[in-house]
């Protein structure tokens, strides 16, 4: 216990990186996901096809393999990335694929009458998407997005393998130094749990705010 307390600062730094990776990847994943969803729904055949293949590949391969391809595979082609950069890129691409499915479903769940009403008022298809469809889709998408977010918070532990000193690797480094495992693993388990439940709570608040119109 004392060991944990003494090294709390180091663990918090790890937790900070875990959060940072989660938030940054989520942020870019959001844009990739939205773009991919719209490409699949509104794009021409080629664009929609590319988007579909991307989603299929990401969903059909383990995230650890995706991380390895970005970090260990790309250097073969002269693209050597920093561990953090590799983490951001691989996780963003991964999140983007999963979120695109969420967004696609959410966009499709908005009643066709909404689009027709907006178009009949003279909005362009793009304005209709932005002002009418997406705000309503967002409400549907928030709960599954929250799940993705919390999922990724935990998946970030995988990037410890490419030497990103996030929370898990912080613990492993301490364990290697002190030759005791349990206190550190328990400590980070608690920290993961606190972060996950914290985000769940925040998401609940957002969800309630968004549904006040209904």
């Amino acid at each position, binding site marked *: 216990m004392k060991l944990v307390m003494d090294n709390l600062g180091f663990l918090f730094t790890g937790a900070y990186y875990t959060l940072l990776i989660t938030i940054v990847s989520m942020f870019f994943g959001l844009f990739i996901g939205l773009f991919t969803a719209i490409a699949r729904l509104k794009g021409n055949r080629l664009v929609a096809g590319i988007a579909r293949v991307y989603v299929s590949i990401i969903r059909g391969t383990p995230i650890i393999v995706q991380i390895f391809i970005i970090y260990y595979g790309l250097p073969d082609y002269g693209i050597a990335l920093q561990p953090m950069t590799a983490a951001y890129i691989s996780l963003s691409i991964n999140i983007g694929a999963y979120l695109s499915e969420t967004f696609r479903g959410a966009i499709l769940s908005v*009643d066709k*009458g909404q689009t027709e*009403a907006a*178009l*009949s*008022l*003279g*909005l362009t298809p793009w304005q209709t998407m932005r002002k009418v469809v997406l705000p309503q889709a967002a*409400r549907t998408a928030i709960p599954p997005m929250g799940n993705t977010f919390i999922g990724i918070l935990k998946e970030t532990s995988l990037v410890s393998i490419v030497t990103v000193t996030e929370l898990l690797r912080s613990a492993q480094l301490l364990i290697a130094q002190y030759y005791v495992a349990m206190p550190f693993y328990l400590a980070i388990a608690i920290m993961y749990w606190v972060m996950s439940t914290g985000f769940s709570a925040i998401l609940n608040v957002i969800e309630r705010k968004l549904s006040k119109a209904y």
Partner: protein
Amino acid sequence: MIEVSHLSKSFGSLSVLKDVSLDIRQGEIVVLLGPSGSGKSTLLRCLNGLEQADAGSVRIDSVRIEAMMRAKERKKAVHELRSLTGMVFQSFNLFPHLTVLDNVIMAPMTVKNMPKEQAVEIAERLLGKVGLAEKRDEYPSRLSGGQQQRVAIARALAMEPKIMLFDEPTSALDPELTGEVLQVMRQLAEEGMTMVVVTHEMKFAQEVANRIVFMSEGIIQEEGAPEHFFAGPKTERARKFLRQMAQEPV
């Protein structure tokens, strides 16, 4: 003002409009009658480009849209058509994430880049006109169906259309709520708005329409002044339709 000529439209193998032609003058109130599935909605939706015809053309004022148009020209024409027309739907289709006021000001601000104060001024006047000024800050889900439909009318009017298209505006309403919507429509008619109305409200059709257009199976079977149409329909189909309407008022 509206000139529909030789319009045809199929959904797959189902032919829904068959060589439909129709002229409507400015200020005219045309009521489209006909059994369900006869193509009334499709015709109405061709007038604002929500449906694309396979053949024929629609002209409103100087905007003309033809079946055989290049995509880019068509897009431009459709956009212009929509600035001339307002549409009211059976299912209201208010935007549930926006307040009543925001429902009404959104299109003028988005499409015409109207400053907010001006849009609000117009919206308040229109909401007053449909009798819902005090509901401006409510969300649509808090309103009755009749109130929602009146907001939808105000929303369409805020774009200052020259023509209003109504597709069964009272069919989704409880009988006791249809009156308030029909009242707003009567008022619009009195103010000289050009209106094309699909409805099963026979009393409204009789009292407000200048002309009845009776459709069945994608064809305009007959048309005429309401006093003539209701007193002596020329076709057997129209007689049958009127008998059914008298039996089971929708």
